[in-house]
């Protein structure tokens, strides 16, 4: 039996980490779960967001959290653009998801190589001073570099959930996800709605990227570690449900953290992918699926 303090700290750290994963997965839950667009480049966009925040903070001494004000809108616009290409080249032609996958795979790869050419493979980190501070709650440590991403990701999820459930536009997007044809009969343009939703999903990726820079140093290929996590969470969370996403993410974070503490950090990457393979094999509708 491991000492209680160690166990409690491991679980809390996993909770904080999992909360951040939920922020990374939120955008993918929208694009993959609601729009049926398997954007496997989503984690790569999160890393682009982290690098954008890094450049802003290194060049103009802008705090990473403030830089989100620039990063999030520009990622929204990028999302509109990417969706336009995706729709024009693949969705419009109908039945060829294979090429769409290859397209996102290519985007991910090109982005990664461009980052390597521009920044090298060194780890980049933020110099914001709160990143080194740690709060104490009794014997449990709450480092700000983990607490801020946890809270920030929570804010992302709440905002996205309110947008989808409470606004007219958000409900229309949920409508597209449910019935493409019916929305058209209501006189709305499904392509426009999906474009906006994809823009939102990339905007969330940008926001998660800012949080990623605070959480840990980044290097160009770090996004690959997140592919398994993001899709494991999206599937486990029940495809398109943001509360389900949060629960699945926290669960994964805790299990991953316990694994890396008690079995060794080199095993951690297999946890999320093993989780994913297991979910797909046993319960593809997810923990909270209907």
């Amino acid at each position, binding site marked *: 039996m491991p000492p209680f303090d160690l166990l409690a700290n491991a679980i809390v750290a996993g909770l904080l980490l999992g909360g951040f994963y939920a922020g990374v997965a939120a955008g993918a839950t929208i694009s993959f779960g609601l729009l049926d667009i*398997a954007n*496997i480049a989503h984690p790569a966009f999160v890393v682009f967001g982290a690098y954008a925040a890094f450049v802003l903070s290194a060049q103009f001494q802008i705090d990473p959290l403030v830089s989100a004000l620039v990063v999030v809108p520009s990622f929204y616009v990028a999302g509109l653009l990417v969706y336009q*290409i995706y729709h024009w*080249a693949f969705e419009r*032609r109908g*039945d*060829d*998801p*294979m*090429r769409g*996958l*290859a*397209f996102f*795979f*290519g*985007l991910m*790869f*090109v982005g990664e*190589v*461009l980052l*390597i*050419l521009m920044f090298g493979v060194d780890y980049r980190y933020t110099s914001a001073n709160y990143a080194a501070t740690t709060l104490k709650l009794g014997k449990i440590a709450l480092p700000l570099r983990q607490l801020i991403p946890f809270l920030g990701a929570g804010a992302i999820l709440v905002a996205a959930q309110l947008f989808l459930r409470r606004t007219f536009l958000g409900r229309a997007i949920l409508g597209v996800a449910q019935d493409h044809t019916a929305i058209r009969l209501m006189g709305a343009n499904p392509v426009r709605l999906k474009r906006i939703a994809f823009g939102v999903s990339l905007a969330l990726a940008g926001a998660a990227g800012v949080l990623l820079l605070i959480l840990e140093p980044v290097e160009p*290929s770090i996004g*690959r570690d997140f*592919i*398994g996590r993001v*899709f*494991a969470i999206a*599937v486990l969370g029940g495809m398109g449900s943001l509360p389900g996403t949060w629960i699945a993410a926290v669960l994964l974070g805790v299990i991953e953290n316990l694994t890396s503490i008690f079995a*060794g950090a*080199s*095993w951690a*990457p*297999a946890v999320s*992918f*093993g989780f*994913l*393979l297991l979910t*797909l*094999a046993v319960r*593809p509708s997810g923990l909270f699926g209907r």
Partner: protein
Amino acid sequence: MAFMRFFAIAVVVAACLFAAMKSVGNDYVFYAGYTVLEYVVLACAWNILGGYVGYVNFGVAAFLGIGAYTGIALGKIAPLPLPAMMFAGGAVAGLVGLGAGYLTLRLRGIFFAIATLALAVVVQTLVTNWEFVGGSAGVYAIRPKHIAIFGSYIEYMVFLMLSLAVVVIAVSRAIETSGMGLGFIAIRDDEIAAEATGVPTLRLKLIATTLSGAFMGMAGAPLPYYITFLEPSSAFNLSYAVNSIAMPLIGGTTAWFGPVLGALLLGISQQVVTVTISSEVNLLIVGFLLIGFVVLAPQGLIGLLGLAGRRRAA
């Protein structure tokens, strides 16, 4: 007998190619040629599942790495000749393909694609933690000093890879002209309709996954001896997956000469670019070509050249 004739022609072409490489009298030709041939095999193997059946495999590196590490593990137990290692690597990779396919192929295609991405990471993690085959530190593969008939070991390896390429191409073409190939195409075009008309979809998909995985594993077995020092990060490099997907999609996925054309063009130009410019720029070019072709030329080069869609009567 059309198959035998095609196979005989392929063997003759391969023999001429080998003789031509030998006549240059420079080992570099063999080193570069090995990589290009490896990509011909990988691209054709990928295309058996990806091009004919329409299921995307992102885990090329997993199958290649399984082949390579099967060879390493066997070599530690009992040093076998390279062809035996290739068969062993192919068998293990084929079994893994069968297992992964059995778990996920009943779901939508997208889940299979994501599962293969996952597979690459899981296998890499297992190998990284497996000290017997070197773990994360890597392992040296010592080439035998001398090899009968062939002067140098690299010539021997090129010969094996060339033979494998001939086999993969012949199998690809045999699939295209057979009833099984028609079943594959039916699945690609409309799986539900295929199922409804009595095509045994799950069985065909499993056959394709196993074949495709086995050929990738066979291509992987000689890899340790080619690079002489194998570590997980090089054996499971993402660039294998990118290239193996880009080559068929650029060449064209509907017929066997699509991936061959793509692999030869991209493989040879990459050898040139890597030497003259840099390997990062080379990967960047591959990525942009991949995006450009899937967006603008969905039928690839053979579509642009007007060769796609032409089908010989089975």
